[in-house]
């Protein structure tokens, strides 16, 4: 790509390039609002997350194209969260990127923190939005609709979305604030490494847990006849539940380390799926 003599970012110790306005804008920009617009199985919200903070990354790495490219690469990685909470994580990520640009933080730590947050915050966010606010909104909307009142859909939309937008805008500022406070305070007391160590552990364990829960394909090959019949999936799950998903995760991980492009892995998976369905050994 670029030559060796790249200029490092010239961020002074206390310099802040990110303004309050940048943050608020990012909470309602194309990426933040379109978190599920470009959703795919493999990448989920990764591309939109990158779009959400792209302008701010550009500011942080304004004199360092290579650093900018590396940052983009970090933030197009797999990401998934209750969409309304994404700006909060965006705020944290930006405060961390400022540190990374100054060389005060390991680059991979920002993805450790994102991975550590996506599971727990989605758990909280989905329960708040999908099973609490949505149900209240639906209940009121339906009762209005049933009585023939055309305000039903409007009331439903307002109850669901007013808190959603408030959370986005509050969240991005809070996330940035929390990030900056924690990182500056932590750096001085030597707590930074501890926090990063914990973030790494939480991130990895959460990915492990999701590897069990988010692999839904099953092997449907049958053994034996009549009552003794059992599927290969049952046999494998008897050895260790979720071993199939773990195995595929291992294969993907290995192939990626062989520098095989994700595009080929995805196309390969699709072809594999069709072959598996044709011969009926998976479902």
């Amino acid at each position, binding site marked *: 790509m670029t030559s060796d003599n790249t200029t490092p970012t010239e961020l002074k110790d206390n310099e802040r390039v990110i303004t309050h306005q940048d943050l608020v804008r990012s909470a309602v920009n194309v990426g933040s609002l379109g978190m599920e617009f*470009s959703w795919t*199985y493999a990448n989920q919200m990764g591309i939109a997350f990158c779009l959400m903070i792209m302008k701010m990354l550009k500011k942080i790495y304004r004199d360092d194209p290579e650093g900018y490219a590396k940052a983009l690469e970090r*933030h197009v990685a797999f990401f998934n969260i209750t969409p309304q909470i994404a700006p909060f994580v965006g705020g944290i990520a930006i405060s961390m990127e400022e540190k990374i640009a100054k060389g005060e933080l390991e680059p991979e730590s920002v993805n450790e923190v994102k991975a550590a947050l996506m599971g727990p915050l989605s758990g909280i966010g989905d329960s708040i939005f999908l099973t609490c606010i949505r149900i209240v909104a639906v209940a009121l909307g339906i009762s209005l609709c049933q009585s023939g009142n055309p305000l039903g859909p409007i009331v439903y939309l307002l109850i669901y979305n007013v808190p959603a937008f408030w959370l986005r805008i509050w969240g991005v500022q809070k996330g940035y604030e929390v990030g900056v406070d924690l990182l500056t305070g932590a750096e001085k007391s030597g707590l930074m490494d501890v926090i990063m160590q914990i973030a790494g*552990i939480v991130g*990895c364990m*959460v990915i492990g847990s999701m590897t069990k829960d988010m692999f839904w394909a099953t092997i449907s090959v049958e053994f034996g006849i009549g009552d003794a019949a059992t599927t290969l999936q049952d046999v494998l799950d008897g050895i260790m539940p979720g071993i199939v998903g773990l195995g595929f995760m291992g294969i993907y991980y290995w192939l990626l380390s062989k520098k095989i492009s994700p595009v080929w*892995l995805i196309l390969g998976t*699709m072809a594999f799926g069709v072959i598996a369905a044709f011969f009926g050994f998976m479902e």
Partner: protein
Amino acid sequence: MFGPALICAFVDLVFGSFDYQFGTLYGFRPIVVAPVVGLLLGDVQMGLTLGASLELLFLGSVSIGAYVPPDATSAGILCTAYAILLGFDAETAVALAMPIGSIMIALSNLFSPVTNGLSGLAPTYAAAGQDKKIVGLHWLIALIYVPIKFAVIYAAVYFGSDAVGWVLDVVPDFVLTGFSIAANMLPVMGFAMLGRMIFTKSLMPFFFLGFLLTAYANIPVLGVALIAVIIGIEKAGIFDQRKPALAAEGDDDDDF
């Protein structure tokens, strides 16, 4: 049928696709789209009635995590349109909803190889610093099957309920199943890509620990995260007598 078909396809475009760009407003639910279709086709009351009953029918089918439920949007639109245009009563329209929703979700699975493949280009563009191409990908992935969806909704209203069945007949079953198998596998590829960025030798055991806690004890991801925090606190020795963390100066575990 030309006008109504166009109207329905347009409602699906705005509420079924662009809602996700406007912030996932949840305006794609039957409670919104059925009254909107009702209003545009001249029977608001039928729209409101169906909106209420279909919303109840699909109440539990929301996308939590990466689970993709039947397409309640197209179901809401088409059921309302059939009820108003073909004179079905509300019950018949509701009975049609689930099959329509399932067919439409199968249709979008048909496009997942394309969108997934496109999303695989993102890391390449990012590594080259081509931010505009990443923005372009966002729109391309989102919009690539919009014209087809538009055409399908249009045809489904124009030709009536038979058209929906015909679409499914053309594509062999195993192709649809195959793509949904692949879709169900792909999230772990996302984890593998993320893992490539953050796993280190000293962190690998924790990946397996998280996996095992969920595999054997069925602990949900939030529980695993909380346990992980406690392990982290213990491992970092925060509550130990001695001063913590100073020893951790000069990271020693990025030799992976």
